Each structure stands twice: as structure tokens, then as C-alpha cells.
């Protein structure tokens, strides 16, 4: 949701217009003028400080020197093609979705372009520093693929408007194949959990948890709305207890309690335990979001299907739930963004995901004191991912709004 009127929608500016615009927006009164000057000075000071620091004092070598660690951790170098391939799958899914969703509008709006531009620029700068021609070529290829598929998707979407309904399936397939590729489940040598790290681990844990939490979240939401008191009570207790606890305590419990409640002959990997914790956590919030969606579906829908003689299971599965889920897609993207940020807590329990590997690199005597550079870089990755996703979810929301689906405000904000 944008608050400020974007300048693009303002009347065309000529010389006089610019002055008028400045007078209206910056110097309309004495107090406004003072505000403008003060905040302008602050802005100039901050930007100057950052620029001077960034170009004179900062030592950015820490990033390219550890770029691979930051991206994929200790993933075996000879298997790195699997990651590229999985990334390719995701790009295909993303490109298609982008195109299909924007089938009735322009592919690029201003904010989308900005994000894409910053992303591409960051990519180019980092890759240039890396001086690794193969990676540069593949990355640029993927970027081209993304845009190309967006155009393809747009055309396909125009011809087959129902294609949009298959997008979740496309994503699921891309996810399953990508995940199996990376972990080596279907083909070749499996990759140990300890070898995963960096951004790859962040993305994997976040996406696996959100996918796994889906069935649980839906069941919990239905349970909480059920008219059976026992089921309602159990679901409510689960949801409220989990939502009342900090994520770190759930992760802690999953690390230390899960081994105790399992029989002695079952050994669990700590990565699996962490994903269990994230899933348990995410399911409670997802349930609240789905519940919001269920509430947004008009009662008439359920009544009508009942009148048609559908049993409650079919009514829920075929009539109510699809509408509810569609209504909460933007909220779920929001939840995914939160979970994506929340995986950084794995650092505290000793995982080397993006933030954790950054900490490890900073402990290396060679890079001691390069905190600002490292944190800025990691922050930029998080920011780009989250911001891009939130823009995508806003577009989705608008799209869904215009197609007459009931939408809901987020029922639950998720946080550690």
C-alpha cells in the first residue's frame, strides 16, 4: 500500500511546475520549510557519511572472498550445478507467475523496475568482484530467462486465462524437484545437512517449513472453527500457546526436547529438528490467517452447497477452502516474508544460515572488524528478497481485489 502519491501520477513538470511542486510539497509554510531544511541536512549528512565510508574506509573484499560461503555454505563444489538447476526451476516458476498475473497490465511498474534494477546492479557488482565468468554468465542467463518467461507467461495468460489457477501447482512441483535436487534425494549422492549453509539454507528452511506448515495450518484453522468443542479447544490451545511464545524458545525446545520425547532408537538430525520447530511455529500463524480467509467467505456459499446436497467435507474442500485460500494468498506471502526473516534466529542455536555464516566469517582473524561491510551485505540480501516479495504480494492483492475475490486484512502478524 503506498501512501505517498508517486510523482509519476503528478501532472507533468516543467520548469515552473517544478518550482510549484517544491513550493507545495516542501516549502508550503514556515514550519514546513524548517522541516525540509532540517531533514534535508540530515539526509545529506547520512548519505555523505555512507558514501565516504563506502568508498574510502570500507574494505569490501570480505564479500567476494567469502561469496560462495555466504550463498551456499559448504555445499560440495562439484555438485554446485544442482543449486543452479534448482534456481533455474524457481526462476521458471517465478517468471511464469509474474507474466500470468500481469496479463492485463504492464509487466513493469515503477517499484518493480527499481527492485529489479537494484537487484541486477548488485548482482553485477558482486559478480564483477568475484571475477567468476561462469557464474556471471549463468546469473545473467537466469535474469534473461526470468524476463523472457514473464513475456511468455503474459501471452499464455491472455490466451488461457485459467492458467493462473495452476500456478500453485507449478510452484509446488518446482519446489519439490528443486529440493530433491539440492539434497540429492532422487539422483546422485545425498548432501549432508551440515554442508548446507548461507542463503541456500535460509531459503530451504523457510520454504520447507512454510510448505509443511500448510496442511497443519489448514487443519488447525478448521479445527478452531469447528463446532465440536474438544477439537475447537485443542486447536485453540495449540494456536494460542504457540503464538504466545517467542520463536527462539520454540526452536530451543525443538532442539533440546524433541530428542527426549522420541524413542531412543530414533536419531534426529538437528536440521530436521529446527525445521520441525519452524513448522510448528508457522502452522499456528498460518492457521490464524486461513481462519481469517474462512471468515471472509460469505456464509451463503456454504449454505448453497449444502442445499445442493454436498456433504460438509466436500463443501469445505471444494467450495469454502479454495475461496478462503485465494483470499489469503497475499497474507501468506507476508507470512513467508516473516518466516524468511525469522530463520535468522537459527544463528542463535548454532546454524550457519545467511546470518550465522556471516558471524562465522567475521570471527575469522583475517576479516576481523569487517562487521559493517558484512552486515550491510547480508541486510541488502534480506531487504531485496523481502521487498521484492512484498511488492509481489501487493500486486497479487490488487489483482485479486480486481477479480472480485474477498480479501482479508492479515489476521495475525508473525514475528519471532
Amino acid at each position: 500500500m503506498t501512501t505517498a502519491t508517486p510523482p509519476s501520477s503528478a501532472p507533468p513538470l516543467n520548469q515552473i511546475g517544478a518550482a510549484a511542486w517544491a513550493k507545495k510539497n516542501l516549502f508550503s509554510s514556515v514550519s514546513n520549510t524548517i522541516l525540509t531544511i532540517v531533514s534535508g541536512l540530515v539526509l545529506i549528512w547520512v548519505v555523505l557519511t555512507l558514501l565516504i565510508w563506502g568508498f574510502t574506509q570500507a574494505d569490501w573484499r570480505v564479500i567476494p572472498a567469502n561469496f560462495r560461503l555466504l550463498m551456499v555454505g559448504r555445499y560440495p563444489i562439484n555438485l554446485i550445478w544442482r543449486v543452479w538447476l534448482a534456481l533455474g526451476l524457481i526462476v521458471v516458476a517465478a517468471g511464469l507467475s509474474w507474466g500470468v498475473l500481469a496479463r492485463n497490465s504492464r509487466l513493469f511498474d515503477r517499484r518493480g523496475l527499481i527492485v529489479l534494477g537494484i537487484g541486477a546492479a548488485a548482482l553485477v557488482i558482486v559478480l564483477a568482484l568475484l571475477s567468476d565468468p561462469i557464474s556471471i554468465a549463468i546469473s545473467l542467463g537466469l535474469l534473461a530467462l526470468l524476463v523472457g518467461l514473464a513475456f511468455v507467461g503474459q501471452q499464455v495468460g491472455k490466451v488461457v486465462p485459467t492458467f493462473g489457477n495452476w500456478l500453485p501447482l507449478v510452484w509446488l512441483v518446482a519446489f519439490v524437484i528443486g529440493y530433491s535436487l539440492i539434497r540429492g534425494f532422487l539422483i546422485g549422492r545425498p548432501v549432508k545437512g551440515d554442508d548446507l549453509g548461507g542463503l541456500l539454507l535460509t531459503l530451504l528452511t523457510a520454504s520447507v517449513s512454510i510448505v509443511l506448515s500448510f496442511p497443519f495450518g489448514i487443519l488447525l484453522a478448521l479445527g478452531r472453527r469447528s463446532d465440536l468443542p474438544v477439537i475447537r479447544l485443542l486447536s485453540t490451545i495449540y494456536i494460542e500457546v504457540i503464538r504466545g511464545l517467542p520463536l527462539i524458545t520454540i526452536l530451543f525446545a525443538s532442539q533440546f526436547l524433541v530428542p527426549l520425547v522420541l524413542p531412543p532408537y530414533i536419531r534426529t538430525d538437528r536440521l530436521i529438528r529446527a525445521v520441525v520447530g519452524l513448522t510448528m511455529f508457522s502452522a499456528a500463524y498460518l492457521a490464524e490467517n486461513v481462519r481469517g480467509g474462512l471468515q471472509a467467505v460469505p456464509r451463503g456459499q456454504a449454505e448453497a452447497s449444502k442445499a445442493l446436497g454436498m456433504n460438509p467435507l466436500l463443501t469445505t474442500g471444494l467450495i469454502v477452502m479454495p475461496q478462503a485460500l485465494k483470499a489469503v494468498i497475499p497474507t501468506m506471502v507476508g507470512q513467508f516474508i516473516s518466516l524468511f526473516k525469522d530463520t535468522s534466529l537459527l544463528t542463535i542455536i548454532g546454524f550457519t544460515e545467511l546470518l550465522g555464516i556471516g558471524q562465522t566469517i567475521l570471527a575469522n582473524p583475517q576479516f576481523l572488524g569487517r562487521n559493517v561491510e558484512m552486515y550491510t551485505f547480508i541486510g541488502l540480501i534480506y531487504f531485496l528478497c523481502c521487498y521484492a516479495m512484498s511488492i509481489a504480494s501487493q500486486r497479487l492483492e490488487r489483482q485479486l481485489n480486481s477479480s472480485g475475490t474477498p480479501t482479508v486484512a492479515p489476521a495475525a502478524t508473525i514475528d519471532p
Partner: protein
Amino acid sequence: MDEQKVPLWRDDRFLKIAGQVLVLLVVLIIAAIMVNNVTVNFRKLGLNFGFGFINSPASFGIGDSAIPYSSTDSFGRALLVGLVNTLRVIIFGILFATVLGIIVGIARLSDNWLVRKLASVYVEIFRNTPLLLQLFFIYTVGFLSLPRVADSMQLPGPTFLSNQGIYLPWPTGSVRTWIALALLVASLVLAAVFWQRRLKVMELEGASGNGYRNLLLGLGAVALVALLGLEWQAPAFANAAVTGGLHLSSEFGALLLGLVLYTAAFIAETVRAGIQSVSKGQWEASKALGISSGQAMRLVIFPQAMRVMIPPLTSEFLNLAKNSSLAAGIAYGDFFQISTTINNQTGRVIEVVMLVMITYLTINLIISLGMNLLNQRVQLTER
């Protein structure tokens, strides 16, 4: 329906009850298996269960403690210190985050283009990066980069600032201070009461309220005397160390600042949405009545926006409370960090996890309760 004999497996009532019993049974069986596993595992490892350890001496130190604590105290006491540390961050965090959030939220709707843009850049940056990263940044880049304690900065006060934290002058614990403090609090409470009365009298009876005004002035004088009566203890710098006064550690500062900046970004969005939810007509009406825009915001718009804001605000406060557990990442001894230390030293995982869960649920419960009361007060009372 009642005439017809419905077979049991198609009887809705029966199915419902049977389903519930089944679910309950499954849950209970899973719970029983888990408890059994715990028992087996415990026996195998020679562990046992019980909260008796709470009374044994902690024998570890805590850097930050707002209440007296020494390493000979019990684990229970150590937990209490952690709880106080957590509450301290939550209370101040909520206060500051609300203030900053309201300012930024209003700034996002400012007429001034630059202010608006700056506010939204702030909000987007803080909302789209993980809090833990922000905390690491603020702690290692912000606080730890302050001068070392040997070359502490002296600020007026006298206050000393170094990467160990800030040392502020603080009232000592003498009798005189306590009396002055009591006087101060009493006069403030009385003043608040009289202020309300004065408003009421002025509103309902059209009285001048002068009598109350004089009373308030008198109370002000008492408060001033009490304030001067406080016995201050100033920190002193000697031998490359600062002693005395109130010490707020870098870890506390970093956690508080991080939580405030992060939560304020979310609160700002809530505030913005709240203000935008108030219909334009209200602005126009107040303008027509000749009320200045600042006053219109304060007296007309904001009170109405409050009604919309409180539920989402509650969840932001709850988030702040939960997020305070990230203290573990930056060496601040909050409840969670001290619990993990105790778990480590005693190996009492289950007990410690239970304590942690009960504590955080209770804190959340209290915040929700408080916000519910507030919500009831600001909602429209329909007459």
C-alpha cells in the same frame, strides 16, 4: 427424522462425539508415548525430574542486574534477575517504540514530501530486514565502537559513555532520597487526580477551575522541592574504570534500541492505517471550525484513530515482548538467556522449557489484558 431408524455410522450426533473421542484419544496416546519415552530416556541416562534445583546456588555471575544478586544466590534468584531484565526491556521498549512509531506514522502522512519519503525509507528498511541482524549491527557497530572504558567520554551530568555502556547519576538509596521520592510520587499522583477534576469541573459546570489551578501550582512546588531533595550519586572515573551511579550496559542499550527501532517501524504502519481510516470529513469539519491542523490531529483525528489502532498495536506490543528474547544473541542476561545457562549447568531441559513457556505466556497474557482494558476505554460508548 426421529421416526426413521438412522444407522449408527450415519448418525450425525454419534459421529461427532465419536470423532471427538477419537481425536482426544489420539492426542492422549501421543502424549502418553512421549511421556513414556521421556521416562525411558531419563532412566537410560540416569536423569530425574523435579524443580528442586531452583533452590541450589547458581554460582554464575550476571552482568546486568537491576536487583541485588550474587553468585551465591539460588537459581530461582537468577531467574528473577532475568525476569526483571526482560520486563525492564519490554516496558521501556513499548514506551519508546510507541512514541517513535506515532511520530513516524504521522510523518508518513506529512504534507512535506521529504519528510514523508524519509519516514517511508526508514519503515521499509527496518521492516524488511531481520531484527537479529539489526541487533548485531547496533551492538557491534554501534555500541561496541564507542570509546573503550579507559577513554570514556564525559558528558555533562556527569555522565560517562563508553562501550561498556553509560553511567548516569542516580539517586542513592539513603532515607532522604526515599522520603523525597515518596513525596515526588505522591504529588504527581495528586496532581493527576486534580487535573482530571479540574477538567471535569470546567467542562460540566463551566467553573473557572482557578482553585484547582492554585492547588496544582502548590503541588508543583512540592515536587520541585522533593526533586532537589534527592541525594544524587554521580559516577566517577578513576583508574581506567567508572564506578558509582546507574550503569546501563551496552547490551541493554543495544537490545532496547534495536527493539524500539524495529517495533516502531511496524507501529508507524499501524498508526498510518489508523489515521487514514478516519474519514476525510473529520479533517474538513475541524478545519471549518478553525482548529489548527496540529490540534485537529491531537483532539479530533487521533482519538478516533486509536479505536482502529489498538488491536494491531496489541499484537505489536506482544511481538516486542517476544522479541526481547533475542537478547541471547547479544549477551544481555534476559530471562531466556539465563534459563539456557541454567539448562546447561543442570541439564534440566524439561523443567527449564516449562518455566520459560509459562513465563512468556504470562507476560503476553498481562499485556493482552492491559490492552483489552485500554480498548474498552477508548471504544465508543453508545448512549
